[in-house]
């Protein structure tokens, strides 16, 4: 079981929706959740930032870990609906060059495999 709520989109991608602040305290949970999803066979993962207020570098590290894990399993990790703060830090760290950012979870993986 994951800490944060998850669901599966029509195209078969897993959506995980963390809430609040992703910091040193919550980042390990997010990382564990991402690993659990990928290991459970959901290699296409969307992290839905719709309910995330704030993310720091620990949160970003968790995303990188998850991204690595998903890609090594043949899938991908993408991001949807980041707020202004999240977008700013993704751009400041240039991480937006590596992780795809989409407006909605559905838009992240529009097609079936």
């Amino acid at each position: 079981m994951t800490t944060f709520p998850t669901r599966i989109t029509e195209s078969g991608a897993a959506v995980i929706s963390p809430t609040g602040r992703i910091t040193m305290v919550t980042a390990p949970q997010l990382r564990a959740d991402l690993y659990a999803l990928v290991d459970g066979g959901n290699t296409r993962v969307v992290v839905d930032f719709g309910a995330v207020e704030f993310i720091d570098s620990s949160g970003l590290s968790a995303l990188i870990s998850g991204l690595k894990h998903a890609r090594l399993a043949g899938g991908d990790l993408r991001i949807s609906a980041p707020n202004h703060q999240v977008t700013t830090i993704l751009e400041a760290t240039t991480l937006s060059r590596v992780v795809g950012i989409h407006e909605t979870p559905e838009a992240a993986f529009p097609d079936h495999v």
Partner: protein
Amino acid sequence: MWFAGENAESEWFEVLGEVTADTMKHRLPRLESGTYPSVWSRLLIVAVGVLGLNYIVWRWFHSVNWLVWWIAVPLVLAETYSVIDSMLFQTTMWRRLRRAPPPPPPEGATADIFITTFNEPVEMVMATAEAAQRVSYPHSTWILDDGDRDELAAAATQCGVGYLTRSAHWEDKPRHAKAGNLNNALYQTEGEYILVLDADQVPEPQILDRTLGYFRDPEMALVQTPQYFHNVPFSDPLGSQAPLFYGPIQQGKDGWNAAYFCGTNAVLRREALMQLGIRGYVAAVEEGVRRALYLADKMLKSARREASASRQEVIDALDKVRTAVHDARREIRENRSLADITYEFQRRVDEAARVVVDADVSSMTADLNVIASLGEGREPFEAMMLFDDDALQTMAQRDWSPLGALRSIRAMMDAVDVDRPDEALPTLPMATFSVTEDMATSMQLHASGWKSAYHDEILAQGLAPDDVRTMLAQRLRWAQGTVQVMLRENPLLQRGLSIGQRLMYWATMWSYLAGFAAVAYIAAPAVYLIFGVIPVKAYSWDFFGRLVPFLLLNQFMFMIFSRGRPTWRGQQYSLALFPVWIKACYSAFMNVAFDRPLGFLVTSKVRQGREGIPWRLVKWQLFAMVFLVLASVIGIVQLYFGRAVSVLGVGVNVFWVIVDLIVLSVVFQAIRYRGHGEDESATEEER
């Protein structure tokens, strides 16, 4: 005495006649509060600048004796170097920021103290650790032991200090010396702010209370405080103290938001470092993808040659993938998202491969096995091999079967995409490409928009090298590191830095080119005295009328800005260590251009063995001095017999020789120095 303990405080409040930075802001006080130079100081800077330019322009256009270009050109180049050096100093002083005391620490700020050690004596490390425990602001103290010593671990546990060594991830990976040590600790601790101390730097209890306040500015990433050595006599024979640098120069850089990290006695914001690590990760991934595409292109070329006789659909598939490679490379140049580029690329490779999917499976497997074997027992397709030029050559030279090539390209892209198996940690917060990780890291911090502050108050005291050999090794290392950064990441070309920041980093690097200028300054008077060759057209009124006022006013400016801090020793060493600077420039260049090792040594804080006077260490300086004295004798003898060009010429050049000799003579003090606490008479007896 310059040291800031008592002194700096009163200086901070000295606002009279100075321009304040707090220009009539009614609501929030600006965080960079303090004072900038007065109008008079700035007029002085302008005057020196104008005189310097006036002199050097005239030198180039009207006074170079081109007939003897072999000495005239080096001399005028050296003089140009010095005028530019002076102008960089002027630019630094223009915005010298003397900060007002910072506000109290941010509410609830958490802090760690890192004490980095490799081979220093356990007692020394523990003395620092105990002082760190006495720091009054709540914090955790950690010893970062890169030497992995049980004895130190036991001592740390006994006095309740955290003890960290490299985690298992680091086995068989590049260790990156001190930068790696800090990176490793960043992953095992959690304080928001980190005070970094070298093993010998004993902190004052108030060090965190006095510095954390600057971090109320959410963009502040670094607060640097001075390095001060308590084992150095007032005369400072080895030039260990850097009162001009830890003072006016860092304050000047600070005014341009370019005060930089010096490796110890500084507080860093963890979040800034971690973000830097993520940027570095993205840059490495991009580099990996770039290299993979380059390699893919080469592989496709040879596959295409081999496929010329095969079926049309195979040829079509290869051509399609080659177009995809070219598109992807263009998109990287256009800065498009790497995720999109690699995803699209993979899709096109798959599509092309599907057409010929039934073809020659066996040759494909053979090719894959070759790639796997290049990894030598490790998992195949690790990004590592892409960074290894030998592997790259081997792969590109091999003849590829068409489909094998496609599969290989696909696998290779998968691997470099996001994984960095060549490094122990996925993200490396501290810059690891240079032996002076500190300067490189702060340059990257500034380039990504963070701020820094220089706090001019001595809050930790350390041990300087006690003998000339260690001192020389240390200077060589600093110089090599700085020149390495200059060559690898030239600040003048760094995106994200302001013009002022570029110039401030450049100024430090520029100062390490002094060795070449010194050779010209030593050679020119000697050449005149021996051969009567005069590198300037005439020792005329024009010449002295331009040069002397510049030199005098330049020294005056120096005095005004250093305000009684002893700077003479520093000036002496910047010329007298010319062999060290030249060696540093040469070895750093060979390292960057041809990957030669630097011959890097950790500076020892313990006294070296005490053999006789180590004349060999300063042989070039001794050679220069003997050469200058002989030249003077020859010149004076020629003058006596009426064969010299002019009395004035000999007079001027003998004067320069004397200046050179006074400056170089510092090495006699240096090689005879036997460490603090043993007075001169003991040294005499030992001889």
